[in-house]
């Protein structure tokens, strides 16, 4: 289980622009490094991030090795209705990690 951290407001008024910060623990191995014996370390990065809210992908990102380990992304969305804000990270091995937070919209 990989550690993810989400920062988002628990409540908002409809129409508010809310800031969301998302981070996942991941080495973001670039594929350009070698181990102690000189063997190349295969690339394995989170290459895709998506945020879904109120029936739509509201933000997404294609990431490359130039994104730091434990990728951190902050963005915003408009509060529309109460419900989950969901996050998906996908790495080079096809593994996905998901997280979700609830927002109460008045």
């Amino acid at each position, binding site marked *: 289980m990989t550690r993810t951290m989400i920062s988002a407001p628990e409540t908002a008024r409809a129409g508010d622009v809310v800031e969301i910060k998302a*981070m996942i623990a991941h080495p973001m191995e670039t594929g*350009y490094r070698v181990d102690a014996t000189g063997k190349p*370390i295969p690339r394995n990065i989170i290459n895709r991030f998506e945020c879904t809210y109120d029936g739509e992908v509201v*933000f997404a*990102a*294609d990431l490359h090795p*130039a994104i730091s380990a434990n990728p*951190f992304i902050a963005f915003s*969305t408009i509060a529309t209705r109460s419900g989950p804000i969901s996050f998906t990270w996908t790495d080079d091995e096809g593994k996905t990690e998901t997280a979700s937070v609830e927002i109460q919209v008045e």
Partner: protein
Amino acid sequence: MADHELEPRLQSMPLLNRRELMAGAAGLVLVSVARPAQARPALAEALRAFSGGAEIRPGKVTFEIPPLVENGNAVGVTITVDRPMSASDHVRRIAMFNEKNPQADVAVFQLGPRAGRAKVQTRIRLADSQMVVAVAELSDGSFWSSEAKVFVTLAACVEDLS
């Protein structure tokens, strides 16, 4: 919400301890020699590929990145685009490209009217002192950019694992 809410926790992660830092510094010369020359597109080519050949004009994009960084492994960047983010006038994509990393691409962010605000923050790796460019694609199909020259003291991609 406080801007620094995630920061202390981020920094407490065992990303780069002192030993790794020292090892990284020691490995600088060796690794830069040992790494084979990689063919990568020039910055201008990468930008052209992103815009599909459309002209990229300077302006509308605010690119915040420190001019001098000690650690190229995690350079905080903020990109803001001056647009209302309405259905008819918004930012579709924001991308970042670099001049001297092994690959020109850094990230492409997809936004839309539901973003509310065209502002994205992340942390990037810089393998050398170089030019970094942020480009925004607007809903009218135009492309705008902002570039920054960054000096890096300790480069990324050179950590030694031993």
